[in-house]
Each structure stands twice: as structure tokens, then as C-alpha cells.
């Protein structure tokens, strides 16, 4: 296993390098960039512009710029944000935990919804409950997540009010009430809508996976064996069944990380959540090179890491799988 993990890590290096190359080239085709901010400044003469360009190394050939950038990156110097002038790593360090926090809670809720519902649905295949679950999951799978978020805001922030204070039932944005000392209740209150938006939409997909996976497991010999030796039915389902059915679901979850990130982009944008997704959107509007490069590299690295984690988890949870 150790050798396998090591080999995968070594394979990840050229992959990340290729991604950096592709993204670097793409970014350099986009108009705007470091000099755009000065181009319309009447105080800057053409000479000033040239001198600045030279000082910043922007007149060097593209491959030289790339090598310089890569070298700096390896040495931990990821450059500065054009907008905030702060180091890119500091910006990301500020935002990444918020995204991890949001996605972590949302993923937990997703699994807590999807796995039991999927299993119930599979155990009672073709029952009314199963039909309802399948239909709702099919719809949830088709719902545009940003529209679902808007509906949540309209219903739970605009229409429904707290009967005691008359304030909106749930806050429509932010991570906590500004100017208030830390309070767990306030944090949770702010989590409800964004997590609800992510979890419900994702749970639909994972309910489908769980159901399919459980249906396959129920047909297996070891389930028949468990029943034959007189194991109580709940134990058959929730111990023998769940263990085997949940494994692929958890794995798919890890593989799905890019899609989950996309969901978080919408959630963060709509709920003014100070995370990586929103940072990316803001940077894209400003064509904030260093920040865009860094965000993509970080998310790509996370994706690669989670893919590996998925494979390793799979092997650990399912002893039938061996990696050489």
C-alpha cells in the first residue's frame, strides 16, 4: 500500500505541472492583467508603462515568465493579489478554511440524508416510499442548484419570519452576525440555508447512488448467509448491508470533489460566504492573475489528493481490493 500511495503521488506531479502550464497559457491570452490597471491612467506615460512592464518582468518571453513563476511557486512565493496587494497565500489561507467548513458540514448532512434514505428506498424496492424517493431524487438531481438557493432565500429569509422578533427566519448571507461575539448558535443559524442548499441538491444524487449500491448488495450471497443464520433483519441491513453499500458512495463523494466545489461557488456567491469559490469569481472579474492561478492549483491539488484518498479508503474499507 505504501508503495502504491508513493507511486500515485509521483504520478500527480506531472499532472499538476501540466495543469499549471495550461492555466498559465490560458491566463496570458486573456486581455487585462497586471498592466491593465495603469493603461487608462493619464499620469502614466508610455515610457512609464514600459519601465513598469520591464521592472515587473512582463516584457520577458512567455516561457521565461512561466519558468520564473514556477520557480517562485516551488519556493513558496505565490505572488501578490492585484486587487488587495496581499500575498496570494495569505488570501487563500483566509478563505480556504471557510470553504472547508461549509463543504464539510454540507457533506456530512448530505451523507446523513442520502445514506439512510437510499437504504430505506432500496430495502422497500418498488414500494410507494421507494417511488416517492426515486422521483424526488430524480428531480433533485435535475434542479439547478442556484435556483434552489434562490427559492430557499425567498421562502426562509423573505417570506417566513421569526414569530417572536419578526426578523427573517434565517439569515440570507454571511457566516455570522457582524459585530457580535462568537456564538455557536449564531454560527449554526447562518449555516442552515447555505448548507441546506448544498446538502439537499447533493443528497438527491447520493440517494440514487446509495439505492443502486444497496440493491446490488442485497442480492449478494453474504446477505443471504446472514439471513440464513438467523441474524435479525435490521442488523442484516444496517450492519452487513450498510457497510458494503456505503463504501462506493463515500468513494464517489471523494471523486466528485470538483463538482462539489462548483456547488460551493454558487452557494458562496449567493450567501456572501467568504470562501475560495467567491474569491475565484471576484478574481475572475478582475483577472487577478496570481490569485486565479493559485486557486486553480490549490483546488487541482486537492482534487488529486482526494482522488488518491478515495482509492486508498476504498482499499481499506473493502479488503477484496488490492493495489499492487
Amino acid at each position, binding site marked *: 500500500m505504501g508503495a502504491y500511495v508513493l507511486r500515485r503521488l509521483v504520478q500527480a506531479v506531472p499532472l499538476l505541472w501540466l495543469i499549471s502550464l495550461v492555466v498559465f497559457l*490560458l491566463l496570458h491570452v486573456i486581455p487585462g492583467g497586471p498592466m491593465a490597471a495603469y493603461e487608462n491612467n493619464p499620469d502614466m506615460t508610455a515610457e512609464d508603462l514600459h519601465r513598469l512592464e520591464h521592472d515587473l518582468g512582463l516584457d520577458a518571453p512567455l516561457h521565461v515568465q512561466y519558468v520564473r513563476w514556477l520557480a517562485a511557486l516551488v519556493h513558496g512565493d505565490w505572488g501578490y493579489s492585484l486587487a488587495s496587494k496581499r500575498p496570494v497565500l495569505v488570501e487563500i489561507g483566509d478563505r480556504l478554511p471557510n470553504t472547508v467548513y461549509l463543504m464539510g458540514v454540507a457533506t456530512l448532512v448530505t451523507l446523513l440524508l442520502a445514506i439512510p434514505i437510499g437504504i430505506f428506498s432500496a430495502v422497500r424496492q418498488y414500494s410507494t416510499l421507494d417511488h416517492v424517493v426515486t422521483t424526488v431524487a430524480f428531480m433533485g438531481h435535475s434542479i439547478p442548484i442556484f435556483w434552489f438557493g434562490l427559492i430557499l432565500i425567498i421562502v426562509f429569509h423573505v417570506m417566513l419570519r421569526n414569530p417572536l422578533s419578526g426578523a427573517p427566519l434565517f439569515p440570507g448571507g454571511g457566516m455570522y452576525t457582524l459585530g457580535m461575539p462568537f456564538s455557536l448558535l449564531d454560527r449554526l443559524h447562518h449555516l442552515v440555508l447555505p448548507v441546506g442548499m448544498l446538502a439537499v441538491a447533493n443528497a438527491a444524487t447520493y440517494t440514487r447512488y446509495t439505492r443502486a449500491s444497496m440493491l446490488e448488495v442485497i442480492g449478494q450471497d453474504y446477505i443471504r448467509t446472514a439471513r440464513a443464520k438467523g441474524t435479525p433483519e435490521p442488523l442484516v441491513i444496517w450492519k452487513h448491508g450498510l457497510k458494503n453499500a456505503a463504501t462506493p458512495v463515500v468513494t464517489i463523494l471523494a471523486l466528485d470533489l470538483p463538482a462539489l466545489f462548483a456547488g460551493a461557488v454558487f452557494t458562496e456567491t449567493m450567501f456572501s460566504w467568504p470562501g475560495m469559490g467567491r474569491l475565484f469569481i471576484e478574481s475572475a472579474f478582475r483577472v487577478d492573475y496570481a490569485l486565479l492561478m493559485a486557486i486553480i492549483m490549490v483546488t487541482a491539488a486537492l482534487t488529486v489528493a482526494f482522488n488518491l484518498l478515495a482509492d486508498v479508503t476504498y482499499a481499506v474499507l473493502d479488503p477484496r481490493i488490492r493495489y499492487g
Partner: protein
Amino acid sequence: MDSGVGGRGSGVRTSTALVVDRTPDTQPLTPSSRVRPQTMAGLAWWRFTRHRMAVAGLLVVAVLGAASTLASWVSPYDPDKPDLQLQLRAPSPVHLLGTDDLGRDLLTRILYGGRISLSIGVLAMTLAVLMGTAVGAAAGYYGGAIDNLLMRFTDLMLSIPALFLLILLILVLRSFPLPFLRGGVLAIVLAIALLSWMTVARLVRAAFLSLKEQVFVEAARALGVGNGRIIIRHILPNAASPIIVAATLRVASSIITESGLSFLGFGVQPPTPTWGNMLKNAQDQMITAPWTAIFPGLFIFVTVIAINYVGDGLRDALDPRHLR
């Protein structure tokens, strides 16, 4: 099997190819009193019509497509002309779905927006399927180094968070003066297609890997048929079923992607209406005029569900394992 697996042809009409006449007594009895058709396409259509939701979905898509195409006849209103006397009117018999912040009839704009959203869905799907089929066919048919190279590239594309790359690509494509189609439609189509061919490529490759070992391919080769012709005329028609299903689902996901991009502000630019940018616009008024947010999203939702059900029905209809 011939290329007629497109689900065309009516249920009862037995058309040209394949099955020659059978004596009535071998005709299987069907639940309905209808005669089961004897061509591949006829059979597929017959099975498709068993799937009620799929038929309903097809109907919904047809109606929406027709209404959007004929928007200028269906609606008496101008989609772009503001009327400041009519700002943000609630739905009424005159304006069935109300009006937006500039007093434009919402339903009219949704129908015109449908033109763009649906065309983007279909165009992006077509390009993605063409690219995916080309890559998958080459990789599966030739194998070896070509396969390795193409599939590693496919993996690379799959491991970059798609939404981030999509936004970068759109910024890049927008900087070129792409001809025709207003509001940057072509850039969106290209970007979506460039980031969604991978699943099709994997699917086609898998189909080609097994099909190229079949005797009919060997026969064709023995007759001196060239590689290109074998790929296109002999193998591809046999791989049509999974491609058709994937293509259908791809239309739905392209529509979601387009609306998501427009919602974030990177899609088609106003005043050209699309369902996505109408939703974005509605964000500012959803407290006073929730209908401006609810209806455009509802159209996306219904369209996507309908197309997904059609895809579901097609899968049941075309999957040879369902042959009875």
C-alpha cells in the same frame, strides 16, 4: 443493427431494414393489443412509449422548443423594449408571469431566452459528442500509445475543477472577436463543449474496445475496408445507443451549465435574455418581485427534468439488455 437506432419511426409501422416477415403465430403477445414492431427503430420506439415519464418529457421539450422558436408569434410583446409604466407587475391575465424590472413581459423574455438556452444546450452537446466520439473512437480503435495519450489527456481534463476552467476559457474566448450569435453565445458553446466531451470519450472508447474484436470488423478488414471506413460505417452505428443516451443527458447538463455561468455573470450578456441571466437579474428584486426569480428557474428545472426523463426512457429503450 444499422444506424436506424435513433428511435425514429412510429410504433406500428414496420419500415425497411432487418427483420423479414414473421408468421403471425410467432408474434409475441404484448400487454397492449398493439402489434409489436419488428425493426430495431420500431422496437426502440415501442419500448420508449412504455416509459410514461419519458413520453411526457418528450412532449414538454417539444412544446417548449416550439413555443421558443415561434416566440414572436406566440407572444404579443417585445422581449427587449422597456416599459417603465409596467415595472415589476405581479402575474396577471395580461402578463401571465408578471413583468421584470424594466417592465418587460416575463413570459415573453423566458420564451426568447429559451431560444438561446435550448440552442446552447443542443449546440454544446453536438460539439461535445463529436469531440468525445472522435477521441473515444481513435483511442478505442487504435489502442496502444494513441489510446494511452488520449486517455491520459482525458483524465487531465477531468481532474481540473471544471467550473474554474470553464470561466477562464470563457474569458479567453471572449477576447477573440467570434463571428455571429450575439451576447457571446458562441464562446459559451465552445467553452462548455471543450469541457464536457470527456465522459462521451470514455463511453465511446469502451464500446469500441469490445466492438473492434467482433467478427464483422474482422470481416470488413478482410475485405480490405480502410480503418476510417470501419470506424465510421461499421463500428460507430453499433455504438450508437450509449452515445444517443449520453448526448440527451448532455443537453440537459449543458443547459444547467449555461444558466449557471450566466447566473454568475460569465454567460450570455444582457440584454440578450437567457434563463440564467434572467435569474441573475432577478436576484436584486427577489424580495419585492419573487416571480422574476421563480419562473425563469422553473423553466430551467422543468426542461432539465424533461430531458433527463427522455434520456432515461432512451436508455431503457436502446439498452440491448432490455430486449425481451
